[in-house]
């Protein structure tokens, strides 16, 4: 069973006075998210990330395609007992205190009063808002509000958590704390679906990442798959390269560039890597390190979007 399964999901909004001008928010978007993963959806503003989450939560109706959550075909009201959601730009009722808010939304989540009583305090402690439990939400800072929002999303102990910009407005220490909470939730077997612009954070915690632009899926894979720069290796060496080595390497059609202490090699397979290592050993050149070159997720993301613009 997939935590999330989307099959050719599309959403077109109509705009203009006559409503005839189509705006494609999502185009045949198919994705599978396995249980227990942290899955991140990336994309520039207007890429369709929030639309996708809203379709999964039945806030928006898809134009075509279908989706299921935790094995239940959507729309399904009941399945929402097993999910938590932290929306972007949430507006919590300012007249409630933090504790009242969690109690109210817990009640709406179908949790029994007695269960709520034992759940609210530890949750407030977990997200670091316990000391403000009796303060009206309208007095909360943006960061405190995000923490409270996370507690609200966790109030029903969900199997699947949707988080839209969860660290928005949170200071670096708070961001680290939230990251740790998410990793801990993952360790408990929860599935986390993340929408975030903070790519460095996504890179740190995500198992799989999908990149979306103009409603279309550009790329999907693990962070490693998305950040590796082809089959390119940086090999540290402890001695200068000899003429003989360079001649033999050239005969093997290996594409190399080098400095006094490293070789940068573009290799098409691990077999070629092994050939290169054998060659270095043959000429007695000490190998100090072998590193597969990779970029950051941010670089990959920007490059992918640039390619999309060019094409």
């Amino acid at each position, binding site marked *: 069973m997939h935590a999330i399964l989307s099959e050719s999901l599309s959403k077109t909004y109509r705009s203009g006075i006559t409503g005839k001008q189509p705006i494609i928010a999502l185009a045949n978007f198919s994705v599978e998210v396995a249980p227990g993963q942290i899955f991140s959806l990336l994309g520039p503003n207007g890429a369709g990330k929030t639309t996708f989450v809203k379709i999964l939560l039945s806030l928006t109706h898809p134009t075509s395609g279908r989706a299921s959550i935790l094995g239940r075909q959507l729309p399904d009201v009941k399945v929402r007992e097993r999910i938590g*959601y932290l929306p972007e730009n949430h507006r919590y009722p300012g007249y409630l205190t933090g504790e009242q808010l969690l109690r109210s939304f817990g009640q*709406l989540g179908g949790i029994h009063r007695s269960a709520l009583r034992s759940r609210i305090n530890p949750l407030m402690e977990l997200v670091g808002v316990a000391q403000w439990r009796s303060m009206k939400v309208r007095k909360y800072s943006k960061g405190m509000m995000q923490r409270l929002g996370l507690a609200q999303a966790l109030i029903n102990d969900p199997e699947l958590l949707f988080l839209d910009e969860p660290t928005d407005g949170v200071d670096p220490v708070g961001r680290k704390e939230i990251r740790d909470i998410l990793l801990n939730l993952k360790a408990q077997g929860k599935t986390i679906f993340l929408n975030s612009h903070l790519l460095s954070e996504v890179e740190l915690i995500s198992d799989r990442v999908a990149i979306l632009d103009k409603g279309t899926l550009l790329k999907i894979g693990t962070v490693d798959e998305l950040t590796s720069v082809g089959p390119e290796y940086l090999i540290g060496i402890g001695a200068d390269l000899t003429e003989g080595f360079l001649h033999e390497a050239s005969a093997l059609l290996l594409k190399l560039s080098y400095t006094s202490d490293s070789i940068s090699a573009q290799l098409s397979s691990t077999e070629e890597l092994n050939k290169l290592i054998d060659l270095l050993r043959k000429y007695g050149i000490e190998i100090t390190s072998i590193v597969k070159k990779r970029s950051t997720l941010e670089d990959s993301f920007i490059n992918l979007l640039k390619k999309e613009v060019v094409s």
Partner: protein
Amino acid sequence: MKIWGLVTITLRELSAKATLIVLAGISTLIILGIFLSLSSSQVEDGINLMFFGSSVGSPVSHESLHEIVHGIQATLTKGLFWGIVLFGVIATAGIIPSALEKGTVDLYLSKPIARWELLLGKYLGAVVLMLFNIVYFLGALWFVFGIKVGVWNSQFFLSSITLTFVFACLFSIVALLGVLFRGPAIPIIGTFLYLFVGNLLEQREQVLYLISENPMYQRILDGLYYILPQISAMEANIANQITQQGLDWRPFAQSILSAGMLFGGSVAIFSKRDF
């Protein structure tokens, strides 16, 4: 349980508004004023009804006193009716649009709540709050008339239920306009406009029929009268209830059907909407 959760949130939201505090304050002042000014005394030839220590007319029999008090209560309730319309609609018109605001509706609908449940919870929250206010006002006045004049008119107290029912019917219009326009201004204006039009429709045979003798025009007016909640007819009936002349159930039955239809329309529109 979930609907009760929505009712509770709505009650908290409405209680935080100044309009209802003003309404409760005005109610308390009226109750206190009547409590302090009203009294009665037994004299040789009947009972003297007194305001601020002065007799109102000559002593009356026990039966006549009941009639006079029922009349006063009917007048007070008529005043309350317009108080409810004015303050009640203004105070509650924003609750459905506020629930549909971006960032709020997401939170509600991410919970295991169907869209009709969200709307019903908000609707009931507004009605329950008005019930509290009306029962507080009429219940206290019923008690004041009982202990000060000795007239325990149960129909006066029960008219709080009837008045709440009228408000519930009226709120179906507020809810529909709230879902359609997502702001409090049009529901308020629309409801007041409806009250005006409803009053005209109530007197269509005396007023609107004079404009044209076209049977189609008259049938349209009749159709509108029977489709929409009959607020004016219910208002007139509340006075009959208090003066114990009996209730005509027809406008109430017709209005509950209309309110149900309007609420159903709100749910249908809300269910199709993207957020």
